[in-house]
């Protein structure tokens, strides 16, 4: 079963920008309570969207270059990348059903 992939500044380009499928990147940090609530939902989504969508998690402490490159100033923020470019963003915690709805809107 697919699981979210941890990415940092070293692995970001290869794992996210050069991926064959769209990738949803969750920018998070250990000090953030809503980020903790997002984690199990992304675990579910990684399995549900296997093959169609990659799910990656980026700890902003360990990947400051990319966090700043994409202008992250609130967490959790989820950015959807298609063919190396950010095409949509979801800011803040959403319950699973709402997150899926928002995600489907950007995916299509």
């Amino acid at each position, binding site marked *: 079963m697919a699981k979210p992939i941890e990415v940092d500044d070293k692995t970001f380009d290869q794992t996210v920008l050069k991926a064959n499928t769209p990738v949803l990147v969750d920018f998070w940090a250990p000090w953030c*309570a809503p980020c903790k*609530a997002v984690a*199990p939902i992304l675990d579910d989504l990684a399995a549900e969207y296997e093959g169609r969508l990659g799910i990656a998690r980026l700890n902003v402490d360990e990947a400051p270059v990319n966090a700043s490159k994409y202008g992250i*100033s*609130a*967490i959790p923020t989820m950015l959807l990348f298609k063919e190396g470019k950010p095409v949509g963003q979801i800011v803040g915690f959403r319950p699973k059903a709402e997150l899926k709805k928002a995600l489907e809107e950007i995916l299509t």
Partner: protein
Amino acid sequence: MNRAYEVIIIGGGPAGLSAGLYASRARLSTLLIEKGIIGGQIANAAHVENYPGFPDGISGLELTQAMHRQAKKYGLETVAAEVIGITLNERGKVIKTTEGEYRAKAVIIAVGAEPNRLGVPGEEKFLGKGVSYCATCDGPFFKDQMVAVVGGGDSAVEEGVLLTRFASKVILIHRRNRLRASRLLQERAFANKKIEFLWDTVVEDILGPDRVRGLRVRNVKTGDRSTLEVSGVFFYVGLHPGTDYLRGLLPLDEEGHIPTGEGMETEIPGIFAAGDVRKNSPRQVITAAGEGATAAISAEKFLSE
């Protein structure tokens, strides 16, 4: 999967977790339904200093995770789902959620409250681009920058002080000329050289265009308008209970709070309310915990009758 419980608790903040602890220790089969963050609003607080037993303070996240562990130890079950409605039938209460229906003999509503949006132009557009409702989460992104905090209560002042750890300056904007926050927090804020106060002032507009670059503010006494250059704005302008789906089932006050009796009982036998969702609740972690325990004890009595 079990869908029937003696007690179902809606909401996983301090009220719900304390109710879960007491109900589980009473050996009642108990399910807690939480749509978002186990721990509730206070999980976002960097430092809780007024919960007894922690003389050096404790982070809201640690405190509520400990409450959750303690309740789970005695058998509390939790599920991530959003409640859509509650209906009554001869066998008890049916709780409709995004993950299907659950049945309970007693229900404790401890859904707490959600932060208000101020409703100014740019607030939605710049969410995640300088607009924030969680200083603990987002403060570190504003290192050596100027930020504004809007509000005058405990949260605004506490989080304003927290933000001075990162920001070069914090401008606290309040629509009145005095703070509502506790005296100790006020003293701390007044003594902090990085905090500047803008009294009698409201935010009219958030200025972009690509991300927050400033605020247009208006002095409510003089009518004078001015512009502040800030790269972040944190809103702490009160909370509202998320109880819309209960209208028609329970009487609610204008803001959506649930009136209860001394035992946290509502007008419907077997339905209780505890914590910030309750009318006239003091909205403290300690009182939410106390009300949750009281509600669970009342639910136990109700079930044994």
